[in-house]
């Protein structure tokens, strides 16, 4: 896509700037003010804000409506959309509605299994998968048609993103899957949080070897560790999360009061290392319920002001 930028995020990336995105998890309630408070902390700090879609399968305010609250503040959202809860009819309908409200970025995901969430007894949908969703959004954008082939009265021209986890198994297959996502429609990729830089570099090397880093913007994911127990918990309980033992020891080795500071320091070091990896076009900061630290991180990384 070399035409007019679709969104601010697209503009930043297509002009070769190092992009910065962050994450905003909507509240477990109808409190729009909570979204606006989180958003205010990110204004002027990032190029776009990902709004999660019932993440970890916990019922929260819908992604679309939280995106709208952020737009009212002048922030650009990346609407996350999972295929767990809606079939192809509802997904397409929501994409049309979201675009009509001015939402211009989408991140297509399958979604966490409901077994880990607040409603493990729920029926899941998974009518289509994340790959199919990518292809659907691209078809809608480029052919102006829905999945049935029906011409749309107004095509959603969205900048399309996908997730990639370089740390899940089987490792060799991860790059094939990345290639499939790019072919299906991904313009940008946001990765799982990176702590194991060696493994991430190996993955990037493989991706570059396949010519994939030329075809897609890769935004490397980071999550600052808040405490030693949090780091340990993530390492042991979050599937596809790879936190090397030396980092866990480093977090455990500082006094409790200084752990958060150490977590930020690790995050900044990681960020610095990521910026030097060819093909990494930006960073995605997932400061879970710690949005007030995003500005500190972006500022100390020398990434302010935003282009």
């Amino acid at each position, binding site marked *: 896509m070399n035409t007019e930028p679709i969104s601010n995020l697209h503009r930043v990336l297509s002009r070769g700037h190092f992009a910065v995105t962050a994450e905003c998890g909507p509240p477990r309630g109808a409190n729009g003010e909570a979204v606006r408070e989180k958003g205010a902390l990110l204004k002027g700090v990032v190029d776009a804000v990902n709004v999660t879609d019932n993440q970890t399968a916990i019922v929260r305010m819908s992604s679309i409506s939280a995106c709208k609250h952020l737009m009212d503040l002048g922030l650009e959202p990346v609407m996350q959309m999972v295929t*767990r809860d809606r079939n*192809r009819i509802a997904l397409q309908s929501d994409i049309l509605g979201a675009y009509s409200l001015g939402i211009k970025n989408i991140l297509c995901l*399958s*979604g966490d*299994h409901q*077994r880990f969430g607040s409603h493990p007894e729920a029926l*899941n949908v*998974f*009518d*289509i*998968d*994340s*790959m*199919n969703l990518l*292809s*659907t959004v691209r078809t809608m954008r480029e052919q102006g048609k829905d*999945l049935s082939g029906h011409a749309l009265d107004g095509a959603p021209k969205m900048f399309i993103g996908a*997730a*990639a*986890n370089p740390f*899940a*198994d*089987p490792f060799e*297959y991860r790059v*094939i*899957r990345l*290639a*499939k996502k790019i*072919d*299906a429609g991904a313009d940008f990729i946001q990765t*799982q949080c990176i702590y194991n830089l060696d493994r991430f570099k190996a993955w990037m090397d493989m991706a570059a070897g396949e010519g994939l880093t030329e075809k897609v913007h890769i935004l490397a994911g980071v999550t600052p560790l808040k405490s030693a127990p949090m780091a340990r918990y993530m390492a042991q309980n979050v*599937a*596809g999360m790879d936190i090397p033992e030396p980092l866990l020891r480093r977090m455990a080795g500082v006094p409790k009061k200084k752990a958060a500071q150490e977590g930020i320091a690790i995050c900044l070091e990681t960020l610095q290392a990521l910026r030097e990896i060819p093909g990494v076009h930006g960073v995605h900061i997932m400061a879970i319920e710690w949005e007030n630290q995003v500005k500190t991180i972006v500022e100390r990384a020398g990434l302010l002001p935003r282009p």
Partner: protein
Amino acid sequence: MIVGEQKPVQEILQMVAPHRKFLILGCGTCVKTCFAGGEDEVALLASALRLASRKDGRPVEIEELTVERQCEDAFIAEAAEAVSRNEAVLSLACGAGVQAVARRFPRSPVLPGVNTTFLGVLEHQGLFTEECAGCGDCQLAVFGGVCPFSRCAKKLLNGPCGGSQEGKCEVDPDTECAWHLIIERLSALGRLDQLRAYVPPKNWQTSLSGGPRKLIRKDHVI
């Protein structure tokens, strides 16, 4: 085969509570093979229920019978006399069998004693695993003989998801990741490139989503 599991005795006791005289009807095909509803299970359950109701001071009269298949009228007919002698039938067949028996005997309450769980295989003695969703449009050729619709918790067509770790599914570490198996198998067959192809959305019309299904074999209709 159709795999089922006998309901907990407590649940069965509550179901049969209104009846003082009932028939436990076993099924000698699928549920017999998975130890849920054959003759042996009928006998064991009958003893357990007799014992429990005696303990409660409300003894019951239980008759036992097992037919070859409860999903075929010719076999169900063999139970007609026994059904007529009893107030109710506790069927140990799969859900299909329970309904077929109920249809045949409109005046007898027919209660389910088994939870029908899945279409599966006997992996080894005592272990049954789900391997088919009965979706009506078999795509096993695409996936190297491993079905992601029945064996992947997210029914991914272009998996695996980010939760696949060391060949196991994030939903249950005792479950193999179907996509890991697909990749392994296609690698072994030298056909991994097959997975490079995008698998489009599945047509679910042939599944239950399209409404209850019927198969008519005109060549066999009498």
